[in-house]
């Protein structure tokens, strides 16, 4: 029916509007390959959950088409799509035991009793909840409920599983533990996963690819490392990880690089010309805190600016230094706590340097 190169899921210029006026999802295109772990990441109200709901069949697409294994599914009701899903609040049936919850998708598919109990037991063992089958959801802890929800979404062996902020209600330690658990389940079962979250570290830890949403548009679709190291625009640079911003005007473009005159009197800096409007346009320079070095002489680095140390925060493995530079007094530099590291004092004047390749000139 479908060859291996065909994506499992395809969104084709999908739009969604709830009231017929405002588009929540503006023009969504996405191909998810078989076995891939794709995360939709974005602030609340960015349209990521709406996209997941359209894929699950709970919301109709206003425009565009969604394909599952090459077949358009806009007119297929949710119960015939065969997609597993983990809900934000788990949505476990409170009047059924854990085993009955897991058996439910198998029963509606008309499976035999012995086959059901075998599959249910295997699914419970997979999430280390063997022996919990007779409990009710209310008798389980949040983490256990979460694992039941995951195994219920997998027990009928769907080729595609959706997760809608499944770890949002858990505390930090449990959340990290579950991140690895879900990642391992994904690797072991070779299932395709589409995951929605607003937590960037969750997205970076687990995904093969991440679609960053904002304002109903995918801002960038890339692997975690590309997203962090090579953001396409100022929103992605600001949303993923920590980021120093400097504003300026593009004065000259040569090859892949450009010369930017900083606002705030910092002078000219050389940056990678990624997403600017050309000579004369305003640009946002994005620079990761760990990519700038402190106390370098002017000749040693492509860019070197004078900075005043405003605040030092000792964090054990590194010292977080807030400096003011070219009128920006929120510029962060991470000084690693290694042998022979630079010792700064608050109020001191120092030089901050960085390479042109680490400084990306983006849209204003």
């Amino acid at each position, binding site marked *: 029916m479908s060859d291996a190169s065909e994506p499992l899921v395809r969104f084709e210029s999908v739009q969604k509007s709830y009231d017929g006026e405002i588009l929540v999802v503006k023009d969504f295109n996405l191909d998810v390959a078989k076995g891939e772990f794709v995360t939709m990441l974005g602030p609340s109200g960015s349209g990521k959950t709406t996209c997941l709901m359209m894929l699950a069949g709970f919301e109709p697409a206003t425009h565009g088409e969604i394909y599952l294994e090459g077949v358009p599914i806009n007119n297929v009701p949710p119960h015939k799509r065969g997609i*597993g899903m983990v809900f934000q609040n788990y949505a476990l049936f409170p009047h059924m035991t854990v085993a009955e919850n897991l058996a439910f998708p198998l029963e509606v598919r008309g499976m035999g009793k012995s086959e059901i109990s075998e599959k249910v037991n295997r699914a419970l063992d997979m999430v280390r909840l063997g022996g919990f089958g007779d409990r009710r959801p209310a008798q389980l802890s949040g983490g256990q409920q979460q694992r039941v929800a995951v195994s219920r979404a997998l027990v009928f062996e769907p080729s595609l599983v959706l997760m809608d902020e499944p770890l949002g209600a858990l505390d930090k330690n449990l959340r990290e533990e579950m991140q690895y658990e879900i990642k391992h389940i994904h690797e072991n079962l070779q299932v395709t996963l589409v995951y929605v979250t607003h937590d960037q570290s969750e997205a970076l830890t687990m995904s093969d690819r991440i679609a960053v949403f904002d304002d109903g548009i995918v801002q960038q679709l890339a692997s975690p490392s590309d997203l962090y190291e090579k953001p396409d625009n100022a929103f992605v640079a600001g949303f993923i990880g920590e980021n120093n911003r400097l504003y300026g005007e593009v004065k000259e473009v040569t090859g892949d690089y450009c010369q930017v005159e900083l606002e705030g009197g910092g002078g000219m800096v050389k940056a990678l010309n990624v997403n600017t409007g050309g000579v004369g346009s305003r640009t946002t320079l994005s620079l990761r805190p760990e990519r700038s070095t402190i106390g370098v002489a002017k000749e040693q680095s492509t860019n070197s600016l004078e900075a005043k140390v405003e605040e030092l925060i000792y964090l054990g493995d590194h010292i977080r230094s807030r400096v003011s530079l070219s009128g920006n007094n929120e510029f962060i530099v991470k000084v690693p706590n290694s042998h022979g590291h630079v010792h700064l004092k608050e109020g001191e004047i120092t030089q901050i340097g960085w390479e042109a390749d680490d400084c990306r000139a983006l849209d204003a």
Partner: protein
Amino acid sequence: MALPSYAGPLETTWYYTFRFICACIFVFLITPILIIIPLSFNVEPYFTFTQGMLSFDPDAYSLRWYEDFINNTQWTHSVKNSFIIAIASTILATTLGTLAALGLSKPHMPFRALTMGVLISPMIVPLIISAAGMYFFYSSIGLDQSFLGIILAHTVLGTPFVVITVTATLVGFDNSLSRAAANLGANPTTSFFKITMPLILPGVISGALFAFITSFDEVVVVLFLAGFEQRTIPRQMWSGIREQISPTILAVATILVMISIALLTTLEILRRRNEKLRGLTPG
């Protein structure tokens, strides 16, 4: 809620006044019901306590009004009618009311407030007006003096209770459960009977109970619509007071009070057990 040790004289006074008022309310509510119970055992055909009853003379008490109730075909006939009408109208009102509540709680329901208003209007419109309206309408389409007519009329009166109780239960119903059921492959019918229905059952049952009681003690509509064949217990009691002046109605009233208490107790026990089973309350 005991009186705290720092309470001043004003609080202390109010504390006891409040309890006194509460006691008075209970006395006024319950005494008329309790008073008919000893009176129904009166050996004399009176509605008041006789000298013998007050001095606890065993000869002043008897079961003759209970015997009269059981042996009188008019009474047994009315009991049968009451149950037929109440059960049929309860089934109808519960089904229709539950469906209406489900529809009304859908997020995209148009004219929700208006529909809700129309559905619960039989509760608000004075009964005598509804009854008169039904009398003229049912007469013109030939439904007066028939069981079907009274069942339909009582369904209309009972439905608002079901709509209100089920709507209240649905407020606490997590819609993602229906979505989860659909996602797991259950069609809407399976999803309703396996997921929605068990979870809203307490609301459906209490609505059904209200609908049953509404029909069971309804007399105004029956006065208008019922012929001799359709006489219910309240209708029979009405003529008992007006025409026969027989304490049999006291015996009937006592039996009805006992049935009501038994019914409510059973339902409450069932409800608690059910909640415990479903893990909704700890314990």
